[in-house]
């Protein structure tokens, strides 16, 4: 095998930290261009189509930002959990839990004026997402049941539950056979922020959420505890940090934000619950979080960037006959290239003989 080893860097320049994710993105786009060539089209032309599709008009920009809304929220859900090394991969299920809560409370059961109704829907959506994760975090903390697998499996259970409700008791009788939920009442619908586009208030709320999480993580004791627990749980325990309690709070916040993504999609984008409400926003949130280096402010930008890939790929696919799955490939490549960039920031790769300083 190639003889090399990784040597810890002593100093990392902040510029390098800033440019590493950009390098990772460029690297991913270069690898993905091989696939575009295989599809028989010109990659540069395709990427131009993609860019125009995502940012080329007022409508395109609005669509990109609307798509970024749930991605920012699921990205935050992944980031806060991963910072504490709590591997919540169940944002997809928690998103649907939030959407279920909106459908339960927001389609006529509770009627409040708009300025109360909208916060109320976000509250119940966040609670639903958080509460879905609660039994799993308790199982992890008290029975050592691995949360990676339980959160993943729960995604499938919740989506089946949504399927049952939409085909059965919650089916909107007005929907002509389509399995979809009743419409959210007018007071609960998130208003458009650019007229005649699909961009709604949820986008602003997602940015405020990102800022709030940034404040919590960087300016509060809770943020410090989360960081400490993520770096070394046993040392944190000895230092008097309540590790289990901190992880439970992290889980509630993480599930809560994923639940909020369900609210923005149900009460904002669509107006009602459908089975295809989320084309994998929960999983894509992991890519959003990784690309931002788990930084909440960075997540606003990485969320918009990955949203532009998805929205732009639709346009590119229509124009160039490249399967839309290219967007998913680019997102996956981004996750892996970010991992390379993280390693390169931490370590220097040294080729050649092993140095042993005994």
């Amino acid at each position, binding site marked *: *095998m190639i003889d090399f080893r990784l040597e810890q860097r002593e100093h990392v320049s902040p510029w390098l930290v800033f440019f590493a994710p950009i390098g990772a993105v460029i690297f991913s786009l270069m690898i993905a261009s091989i696939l575009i060539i295989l*599809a028989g089209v010109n990659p540069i032309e395709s990427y131009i189509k993609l860019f125009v599709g995502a940012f080329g008009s007022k409508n395109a920009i609005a669509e990109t930002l609307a798509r970024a809304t749930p991605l920012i929220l699921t990205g935050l859900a992944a980031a806060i959990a*991963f910072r504490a090394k709590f591997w919540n991969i169940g944002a997809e299920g928690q998103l649907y839990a939030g959407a279920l809560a909106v459908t339960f409370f927001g389609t006529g059961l509770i009627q409040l004026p708009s300025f109360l109704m909208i916060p109320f829907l976000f509250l119940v959506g966040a609670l639903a997402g958080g509460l879905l994760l609660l039994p799993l975090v308790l199982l992890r903390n008290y*029975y050592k049941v691995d949360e990676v697998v339980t959160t993943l*499996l729960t995604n499938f259970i919740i989506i*089946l539950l949504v399927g049952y409700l939409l085909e059965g008791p919650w089916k909107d009788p007005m929907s002509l056979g389509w399995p979809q939920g009743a419409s959210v009442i007018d007071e609960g619908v998130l208003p458009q922020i650019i007229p005649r586009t699909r961009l709604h208030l949820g986008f602003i709320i997602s940015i405020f959420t990102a800022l709030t999480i940034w404040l919590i993580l960087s300016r509060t004791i809770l943020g410090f505890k989360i960081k400490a627990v993520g770096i070394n749980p046993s040392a944190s325990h000895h230092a008097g940090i309540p590790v289990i309690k901190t992880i439970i709070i992290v889980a509630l916040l993480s599930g809560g934000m994923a639940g909020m993504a369900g609210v923005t999609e149900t009460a904002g984008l669509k107006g009602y619950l459908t089975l295809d409400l989320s084309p994998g926003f929960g999983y894509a949130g992991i890519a959003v979080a990784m690309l931002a280096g788990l930084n909440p402010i960075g997540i606003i930008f990485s969320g918009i960037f990955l949203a532009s890939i998805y929205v732009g790929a639709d346009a590119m696919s229509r124009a160039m006959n490249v399967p839309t799955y290219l967007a998913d490939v680019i997102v996956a490549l981004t996750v*892996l290239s970010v991992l390379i960039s993280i390693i390169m920031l931490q370590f220097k790769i040294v080729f050649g003989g092993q140095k042993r300083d005994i």
Partner: protein
Amino acid sequence: MIFDFVEILFTAGFWAATIRIACPLIFATLGELICERAGVLNLGIEGIMSVGAMVGWMAVYQGADLYSGILIAAFVGAMFGLLHAIFSVYLGASQHVTGIGITMLASSLGFFSFKLILPYSTTPPKIEPFQPIDIPFLSDIPFLGEALFQHTPFTYLAIISVVFIFWLINSTPFGLSIKMAGENPMALEAQGIDVLLVRSMAVILGSALMAVGGAYLTMSAFDAFYFGMVNGRGWIAIALVIFATWKPERALLGALLFAGLDAYQVRAQQLAGAVIPYQFFLMMPFLLSIVAMIIAAKKTRYPKALLIPFRRGERH
């Protein structure tokens, strides 16, 4: 009514279905088990199964014979295993994030290539899959013959792999180094064995098995490929590894038990008719996996070095 539910257990069809449903899980669970035994959690499993299902099927659809289809799926799985190993073993990156990234990459690449090769197919095209072969004499035994000895060659391959992996882990020097790489990599290095190489080989072999498990779906259980057909089987396999306490023979048992419950619920569903909505039956495998993990949790002892990257020349 109750009698009908018990009677299911006495039909050979039920037992034959149990084995059929168990096969992809057997391959996948064995694959994950080898990776974890060597100290690497492989969350790429779901995507690797998906790409294996696509590639094996596509190879046969393009004219390869069925056995070459299995080999091609295994090779593609091994390549994703190599990629996983470069990240998780050689670079020492987070095994969680690497695995999720590999799952995303493998499944999206699989879907992308499927759409690229067959852009206009609306109804999934079909192949001629593996056919059941009757094992001489044994298949004539009443009940047992139909339950156990009238399966496709791919099914028998699953059983053979259990024996092979059992032998590999318990009786070969390579198996011993895999176990040491997962329990005490420093000691393995002290023996002059390359820990990174052993771990990588385990991940590559394990990923090949996962892809073969996926290929079983399109080449033996069904005859077509469609998106989302793996449907969480990879994640269930990870739960089964824990349930099996990282032992191949118990992985077989766990997969069979699990498949038995699944085969049973399909038949019970037909009896129960519209009383219980079908979605609740479909939830069962996922709920059962969580329950299995809770049951196993008390005696769960993870390989000691699982999730811990090994860096050469670094003392722990």
